[in-house]
């Protein structure tokens, strides 16, 4: 059996040894040619059905070597005998080739009908569909198209020599035919056993099988020597045993449906035809030996599990592991069903379901051409980088976390002037005859009395009266408003508004400007000086907003304040953003202008006690719990969340979000808040900042026990509940 192949095509390397192969050989056939087995014994089918030829090929373990063409340079490593492969080791140099799965191409295609399997039932399905004028795609593993799974749609995922193939079809026909039944008897895990079909393939490839014995249902067991079959023992009608020596045993036990795909395809539009869908006689119940070659489950194992009460096919499978391996029960299911039928003297149980992957793929193949999480950049991204910003992802955007020194950024806001990129804020324009009506219903505050050119802070509540988002309502004209939302909440808020407006059938136009307008927050006591230099002569009053050109850039100038200092948000078209930013930085140089990042902004807002929805709030946060009842006008007849608030207002409430302060450094955000009386955890800190100005630790956080405490323990220290804002409680500075 060691004859060199007729036509040498090159060499592959198996366990470190080069072996020659012939044109057209699969890796498995090339190995069998050398007189060895590709795995560690068990009957070979060479049709991609069993798990007996699995090995590591080119760094990928659990590859069916009968399905891989031998190519010069293919490196095959057998799995350890009786053991498992080691976890793959990463070549870290490979990782510079990003991203995941990018080296694998994905082709996408569509067809009226996709037929899986090109045997006779498949061919007739193809012809039938073609003659009905339908466009047909045929996928056959023998042509290299290995179907991984059938999915709802219906759709098919396959691997083929070009990479991954994603197919959408109106109809999928599973015509995978039948498989040869594997032997399940003592010695069936020896090497040198092949199915009749495999023997034909090997003979056609010119592989010398040595002394061959054909055996059918009379098979009793195999005898072996050094892991290879040496004889076949059969039993005759008269119960006499006959032992026939051999070098290769060829087994013909009949066929079973090749139904792994049929068993997983409960998706609509999927049907199975031909032998894949036909019941076939089950093999005789196995009496001894390995039943499930993938997992090594024996008849004794089935017996033992059954005796313990695992008497349902599904329970038996899980208890005995039969069917849990790479062939998904393809090999063992007929035997196990037959065994149960014999055991219960009843009909065989229905087959268990199969799930993808029918043919396995690697994670990289699955991940080919995946793209998730598109992160957004503001037009000022490169400006931030130039200024040394540490960028971080926040609410789906890249944003400056700090520019090296958050405390210096803080002081620039408190004592000079500073710029911050707030382009990420949600921005909607709404307009129409019913716009006031719509906004009155959506927001818990009054809207009708906001005059054009004025604005109001607003909470956005859901039906349960819980805070979803917050932002500004700015009236542009009688029937037109600009609305702002948080960066993270913008997309949701937009859907929310559109949904309600449509639900109510109100005549309101909505335009999302979130990514169309950039915005720069200019803030600090010197802000007016800076903006005047750039052309803003008549700055709007607090909560006013105007259109003005600043440094030649048309801006919607909004006067509001999150930082506690005088502040103007300059909303402007993206194409003017860099010019505006640079003009502000240049014109403010002598004023000490510097940019501030999120870290400084969080500290600044904390001193003002402003809430950040999502960071401070929970999904059950009501305005009352935030101490923001002032933002809700219960005298309004209707707004979203009103009914809930009316109901919950009558409940005792044990949750409050309040300010705390103590000496020393600020504790970590998220710190537990304890009762000073009994040490019980009564809440947690949601915001924490060592105030450079007030020189103490300021905190915002939750109390979740009543009666609410005046003094609490945080970070092992005593903190006192402190009214907010901590800084400039009258708000003189913001209005200045």
């Amino acid at each position, binding site marked *: 059996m060691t004859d060199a192949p007729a036509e040498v095509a090159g060499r592959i390397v198996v366990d470190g040894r080069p072996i020659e192969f012939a044109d057209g050989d699969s890796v498995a056939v090339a190995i069998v040619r050398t007189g060895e087995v590709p795995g560690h014994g068990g009957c070979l089918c060479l049709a991609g059905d069993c798990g007996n030829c699995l090995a590591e090929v080119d760094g990928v373990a659990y590859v069916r070597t009968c399905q891989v063409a031998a190519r010069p340079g293919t490196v095959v490593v057998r799995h350890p005998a009786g053991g498992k492969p080691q976890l793959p080791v990463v070549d870290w140099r490979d990782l510079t080739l990003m991203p995941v799965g990018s080296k694998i191409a*994905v082709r*996408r295609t569509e067809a009226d009908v996709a037929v899986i399997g090109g045997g006779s039932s498949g061919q007739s399905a193809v012809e039938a569909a073609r003659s009905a004028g339908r466009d047909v795609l045929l996928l056959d593993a023998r042509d290299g198209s290995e179907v991984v799974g059938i999915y709802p749609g219906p759709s098919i995922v396959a691997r083929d020599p070009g990479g991954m193939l*994603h197919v959408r079809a109106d109809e999928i026909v599973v015509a995978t035919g039948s498989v040869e039944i594997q032997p399940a008897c003592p010695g069936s895990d020896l090497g040198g056993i092949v199915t009749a079909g495999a023997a034909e393939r090997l003979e056609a490839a010119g592989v010398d099988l040595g002394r061959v014995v054909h055996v059918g249902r009379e098979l009793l067991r195999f005898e072996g020597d050094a892991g290879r079959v040496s004889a076949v023992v059969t039993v005759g009608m008269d119960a006499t045993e006959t032992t026939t020596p051999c070098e290769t045993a060829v087994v013909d036990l009949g066929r079973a449906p090749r139904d792994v795909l049929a068993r997983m395809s409960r998706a609509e539009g999927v049907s199975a035809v031909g032998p894949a869908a036909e019941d076939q006689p089950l093999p005789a119940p196995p009496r001894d030996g390995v039943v499930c070659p993938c997992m090594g489950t024996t008849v004794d194992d089935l017996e033992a599990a059954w005796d313990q009460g695992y008497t349902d096919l599904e329970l038996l499978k899980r208890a005995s592991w039969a069917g849990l391996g790479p062939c998904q029960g393809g090999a063992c299911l007929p035997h196990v069903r037959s065994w149960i039928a014999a055991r219960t003297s009843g009909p065989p149980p229905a087959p268990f379901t199969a799930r993808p992957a029918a043919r396995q793929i690697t994670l990289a193949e699955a991940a080919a*051409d995946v*793209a998730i999480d598109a992160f957004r950049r503001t037009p000022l991204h490169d400006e931030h980088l130039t200024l040394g910003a540490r960028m971080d992802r926040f609410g789906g955007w890249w944003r400056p976390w700090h520019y090296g020194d958050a405390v210096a950024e803080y002081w620039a806001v408190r004592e000079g002037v500073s710029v911050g990129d707030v382009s990420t804020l949600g921005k909607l324009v709404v*307009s129409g005859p019913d716009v006031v009506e719509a906004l009155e219903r959506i927001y818990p505050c009054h809207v009708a009395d906001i005059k054009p050119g004025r604005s109001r802070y607003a909470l956005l509540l859901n039906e349960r009266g819980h805070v979803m988002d917050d932002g500004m309502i700015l009236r542009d004209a009688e*029937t037109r408003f600009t609305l702002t939302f948080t960066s993270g909440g913008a997309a949701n808020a937009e859907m929310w508004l559109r949904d309600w407006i449509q639900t109510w059938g109100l005549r309101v136009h909505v335009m999302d*400007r979130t990514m169309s307008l950039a915005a720069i927050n200019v803030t600090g006591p010197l802000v007016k000086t800076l903006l005047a230099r750039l052309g803003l002569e008549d700055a709007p009053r607090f909560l006013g907003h105007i259109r003005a050109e600043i440094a030649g850039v048309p801006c919607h100038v909004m006067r509001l304040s999150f930082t506690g200092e005088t502040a103007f948000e300059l909303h402007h078209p*993206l194409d003017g953003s860099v010019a505006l930013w640079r003009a502000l930085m240049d014109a403010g140089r002598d004023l000490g202008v510097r940019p501030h990042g999120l870290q400084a902004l969080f500290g600044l807002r904390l001193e003002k006690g402003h809430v950040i929805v999502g960071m401070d709030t929970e999904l059950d946060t009501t305005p009352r719990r935030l101490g923001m009842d002032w933002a809700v006008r219960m005298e309004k007849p209707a707004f979203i969340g009103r009914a809930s608030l009316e109901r919950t207002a009558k409940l005792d409430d044990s949750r409050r979000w309040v300010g705390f302060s103590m000496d020393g450094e600020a504790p970590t955000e998220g710190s537990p808040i304890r009762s000073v009386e009994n040490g019980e955890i009564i809440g947690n800190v949601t915001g924490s900042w060592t105030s450079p100005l007030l020189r103490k630790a300021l905190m915002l956080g939750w109390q979740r026990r009543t009666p609410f405490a005046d003094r609490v323990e945080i970070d092992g220290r005593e903190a006192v509940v402190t009214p907010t804002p901590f800084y400039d409680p009258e708000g003189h500075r913001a209005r200045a």
Partner: protein
Amino acid sequence: MPALEPVEGWRVVATPSALDGARWNGDDVDVLRIAPDEALALGATGVEIDDPDAIVEPEAGFSVAMLDVDDWHGVVDHIDWPLPEEPTVLAQGKVAGVPARIVLGEPTLLVVQAAYANELRSRLGW
């Protein structure tokens, strides 16, 4: 590599019938009807529209790439939803995971919000 460059135009939200009758100023205007009540007119310099409540805004928030047939083949590989058969129809969906709009034609236009332009470029290897 195709260039994905910012473009200017006008964006309008108005009643569908008013939008149907909109008159766009400018040569070489590409009107993308991104919703029944919304249009993005690339290259427009103005618009006349018969809806007093229409929201009409200059728009500089989009980037566009003009794709020749080869470029387009490179893009199609990263689209996992069915494209319309007819040319000039606006298709909207994700390209390489980035929300985008496509107008099939010669050339084909690939339109994204500028905030995503960088992400799209890197995903398409541009």
